[in-house]
């Protein structure tokens, strides 16, 4: 490696006293400028459509700003104060959290079970893997339409099925908690198989002889799963949790389509924060307040990211301590 990296430098700049030819200068320019040329499309476009909007959102949030009338007077942090005082903001935050928890936890548990089953030496591997991934190719809009139909309160599939067993119809759309369950189940249906495949990849990387020696020591299948599989795939589990957090805090499509007339139900019982942002910007036409919501949501997402990171680092370090203890324990034997 070290030998090869030295070679081009020697070849590119031969110790010459004569003036470099045009061709040589062109070559030097080519070597120096090309990397910047290759990365510039990304940075230029990202500056325009990623960075600028985010910063400009802050500028808008400091003003009275109407969808059609445009920029009004400077109000400082007034919009932030208004939003923080609005109980619908806190309502949306509560709903987002509730739907997020109802989707993240069952999703992780379900994905673990599916991955553990797929990790066995089964026949027709590709078929079963494809079957759990099938929901992923159904778009969120289609998922929302299908599940809205199934969760219909009067004659939806689920209520009429439950009715056959004497269960009273559940008010999936009217009541807060059932509506969160319904929306979370849309997310879960689409993403559980996807996450299971990520976890499966991690499980397959666990060396098989660890399982063997544990089995020789008399550990059963369940014990092996909890003592070997789970600790080994922990980094991947953290990765799955972080990505589903970032996605879960921005949920929009499912609650938007669960009730097409209102933005998140007549009593806003399932209005998520992005839905609240959308309503503020494009129905109440208050861009100033909507931008304040966007920034608050951005801060919340960053906060969650940092929290996740700190948590995973702590888990990792406690893991390291246990590993350090292990040789000592072995020494006692």
């Amino acid at each position: 490696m070290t030998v090869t990296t030295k070679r081009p430098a020697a070849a590119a700049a031969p110790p010459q006293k004569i003036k470099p030819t045009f061709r040589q200068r062109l070559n030097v320019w080519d070597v120096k400028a090309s990397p910047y040329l290759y990365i510039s499309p990304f940075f230029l476009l990202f500056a325009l459509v990623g960075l600028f909007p985010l910063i400009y959102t802050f500028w808008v949030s400091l003003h009275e700003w109407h969808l059609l009338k445009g920029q009004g007077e400077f109000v400082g942090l007034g919009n932030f104060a208004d939003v923080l005082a609005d109980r619908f903001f806190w309502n949306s935050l509560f709903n987002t959290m509730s739907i997020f928890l109802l989707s993240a936890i069952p999703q992780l548990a379900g994905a673990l079970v599916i991955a553990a089953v797929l990790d066995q030496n089964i026949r027709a591997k590709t078929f079963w893997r494809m079957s759990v991934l099938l929901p992923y190719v159904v778009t969120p809009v289609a998922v929302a339409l299908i599940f809205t139909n199934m969760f219909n309160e009067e004659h939806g599939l689920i209520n009429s099925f439950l009715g056959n067993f004497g269960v009273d119809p559940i008010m999936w759309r009217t009541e807060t908690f059932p509506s969160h369950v319904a929306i979370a189940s849309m997310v879960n249906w689409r993403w559980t198989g996807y996450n299971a495949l990520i976890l499966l990849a991690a499980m397959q990387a666990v060396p098989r002889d660890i399982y063997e020696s544990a089995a020789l020591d008399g550990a059963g299948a369940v014990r092996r799963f909890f003592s070997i599989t789970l600790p080994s795939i922990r980094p991947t589990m953290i990765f799955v949790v972080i990505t589903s957090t970032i996605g879960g805090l921005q949920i929009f499509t499912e609650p938007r389509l669960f009730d097409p007339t209102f933005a998140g139900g007549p009593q806003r019982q399932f209005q998520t924060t992005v839905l609240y942002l959308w309503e503020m910007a494009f129905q109440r036409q208050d861009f100033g307040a909507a931008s304040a919501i966007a920034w608050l949501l951005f801060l919340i997402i960053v906060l969650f990211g940092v929290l996740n990171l700190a948590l995973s680092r702590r888990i990792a370090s406690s893991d390291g301590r246990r590993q350090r203890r292990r040789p000592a324990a072995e020494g006692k034997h």
Partner: protein
Amino acid sequence: MSILERHTTPGQELPAPRRRPALRHRLLGNGLRPGYLTYGLLLAFFIGSAYPLWWSAVVGSRSNEALSLTWPPLFPGGNFWKNVAEVMDTIPFWTALWNSILISSIITVSVVMFSTLAGYAFAKLRFKGNNLLMVAVVATMAIPTQLGIIPLFMLMRTFGWTGEIGAVIVPTLVTAFGVFFMRQYLVDVIPDELIESARMDGANMIKTFWHVALPAARPAMAILSLFTFMSAWTDFLWPLLVLDAGNPTLQTALSQLQSNRYTDYSVVLTGAVLATIPLLILFAAAGKQLISGIMQGAVKG
């Protein structure tokens, strides 16, 4: 495999050194096929994945009355084409399909092209600020660009692009994830010697990229294409904001079916079925690549 299995057949004396694999079989079932419980669970997952789709096909091929039956019907009825005609009357289906194909394709080509270029530069070329700029890329990956929709909307309005599909395409022409993904792939897959020898042979930088990096990058480009196409195809919030009902994408058109004053569920679900068919075809053709892409650690797009 076959040797091991032959040794474990009952009644056969095992030679001493072969004991370990035999024990392994009994303890772990490696090599042995798992039992009914495993396949029962797999079948349950399969039904859970497929049933909502099947249900939408069942309802989509019947009329609304099917929904009021106590025991829901199990099989499709004969109303499918009538419902399809209804969908076509309600929304500009073909325009929407064409728009979705066009938007997703252009975004995919652009993302993959720019990501491969930048990923190659970050992985294999030495230049000032390489590391710092790469950190910037990783940091931007964590920024939810969705939250910039208000200025972006104002920008599109200023350009006069609202209502046109360009407004949907431009904001996603590049992704930080794509750059990161290609960089991670290319850093291992291209030997430095290969680039050097191409340079020695007199290839300039772009020729080296074209003849050395691009062929090596092809598998990763295929996976990135799939995921980029999928996420462009499924996007809903942004097209909903900048496109109008007359010139929608498939997703926003589909949502119009439900927001009509009366909701005919069989028509809505026929629409859902129609919109799912293109991706099912893609899935049948490229499902294996999709799976290996996810298992190689591709992140949600």
